[in-house]
């Protein structure tokens, strides 16, 4: 299908940013959660601006709250609360000091962040596109966020104190592997979704973006994370590289995700498309 670039950018930013916040909250962050909240907010802002370009009539945005059965409405509904929660986190220590309540606010923000990711992931699951007609879509949405988040936490550690617990790196490696395996399974599934829209990602026109995903989303992060053990002096650089590469990999993956998701053919039993020629 046609690639909706604003959605590539916005969903990538959402996964990287929200994944970072959730992992930082769950795994414990060496950097104050408030700072993480600002990074997340920054990424969400970039994503938000990008998604405005997707809407053909952005001035009507407030119509989006009408249909709670629609995942888009759910997303729209969560957004202000999520924003407020992140803001509340971010202003902690600046405007006020929450003390023990920090945890609660962080939890609320993390839960809302997770809910946001779930709604966005579910929005892409639909019967009309066989490649997207699977719970894999939501799972992968979350796993990619997890991969970016765990690598992001490693970066946070290195930025904060120059050292990172091996467990964190291990978790990042594991998340990357699990995510990559699930992505590979999804790619494999694309070859046999039927309805006349089977896609072989290793062939043109998917090939180049497939390779980009493999390199940026799987190979580089794994190699960079692995090399951290061999070259601890370059750990920060390697971690940063892994994180940026992962972000790029998510973007490349999303492009492949869009490209490979063709609408069901009306008559899939015929090898040839509907003709408009006369």
């Amino acid at each position, binding site marked *: 299908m046609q690639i909706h670039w604003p959605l590539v950018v916005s969903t990538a930013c959402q996964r990287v940013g929200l994944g970072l916040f959730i992992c930082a909250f769950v795994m414990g962050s060496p950097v104050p959660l408030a700072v993480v909240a600002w990074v997340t907010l920054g990424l969400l802002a970039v994503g938000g601006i990008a998604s405005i370009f997707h809407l053909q009539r952005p001035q009507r945005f407030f119509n989006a709250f009408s249909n709670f059965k629609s995942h888009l409405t759910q997303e729209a509904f969560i957004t202000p609360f999520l924003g407020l929660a992140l803001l509340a986190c971010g202003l902690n220590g600046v405007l006020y000091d929450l003390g023990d309540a920090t945890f609660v606010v962080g939890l609320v923000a993390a839960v809302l962040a997770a809910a946001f990711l779930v709604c966005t992931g579910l929005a892409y699951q*639909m019967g009309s596109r066989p490649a997207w007609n699977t719970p894999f879509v939501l799972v992968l949405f979350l796993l990619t966020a997890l991969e970016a988040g765990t690598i992001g936490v490693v970066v946070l550690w290195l930025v904060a104190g120059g050292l990172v617990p091996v467990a964190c790196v291990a978790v990042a490696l594991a998340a990357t592997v699990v995510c990559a395996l699930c992505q590979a399974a999804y790619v494999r599934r694309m070859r046999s979704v039927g309805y006349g829209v089977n896609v072989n990602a290793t062939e043109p026109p998917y090939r180049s973006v497939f390779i980009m995903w493999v390199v940026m989303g799987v190979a580089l992060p794994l190699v960079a994370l692995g090399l951290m053990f061999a070259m601890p002096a370059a750990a920060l650089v390697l971690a940063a590289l892994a994180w940026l590469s992962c972000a790029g990999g998510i973007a490349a993956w999303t492009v492949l995700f869009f490209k490979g998701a063709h609408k069901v053919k009306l008559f899939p039993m015929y090898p040839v498309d509907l003709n408009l020629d006369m």
Partner: protein
Amino acid sequence: MESTSQKHYGMVIDLDKCTGCQACAVACKMENDVDLGVFWERVYRMGPIGQFPDQLEMFYFPNQCMHCENPSCITVCPTKATYQTDDGIVLVDANLCFGCQYCIWACPYEARTLNPNTKTVEKCILCVHRLEQGEQPMCAYTCTTGCRVAGDMNDPDSEISRILAANADRVFRVHPEFGNQPSVVYLLPRKGAETLCKSIGRS
């Protein structure tokens, strides 16, 4: 006593008759003043596929909104711009639509287009303004083969019901397994769509 039963508008299209002349597509465009680049009705050609001269299949397929009983588009529309009337017609309120195109993604029948000028989504309206006057949608009115008839599917005496009953063995909805239950029902060609018929278990 007047009947108070609920109307359910639908349309039957006999693919055995359709000759792909595009009159319906043009009629729709003229009647509804549809913009260039936007298509509420398109007539496709399936085939010819096979071996010339005696193992070939071909038929024409007019496509437009199916006015489903369980529309995918309504579930996903965040603004409720897309809605369904009590008598089953699916419509878009252009004043509410903000062009997110979620409905276009969700529709399995490729029925909807984004109008690049108004930046809202458009599609076949079953000429609801004509149905209200008791007239056929423009596509059905002008069809050169007379293969399209719209009407109340809940009324057993309506022309559409009679046609469906008389041709029950050829009745076909596209992708019934999705559960959308289209109100636009096709009649399979008696000849020229053997692969289609075989794959859905019909002779």
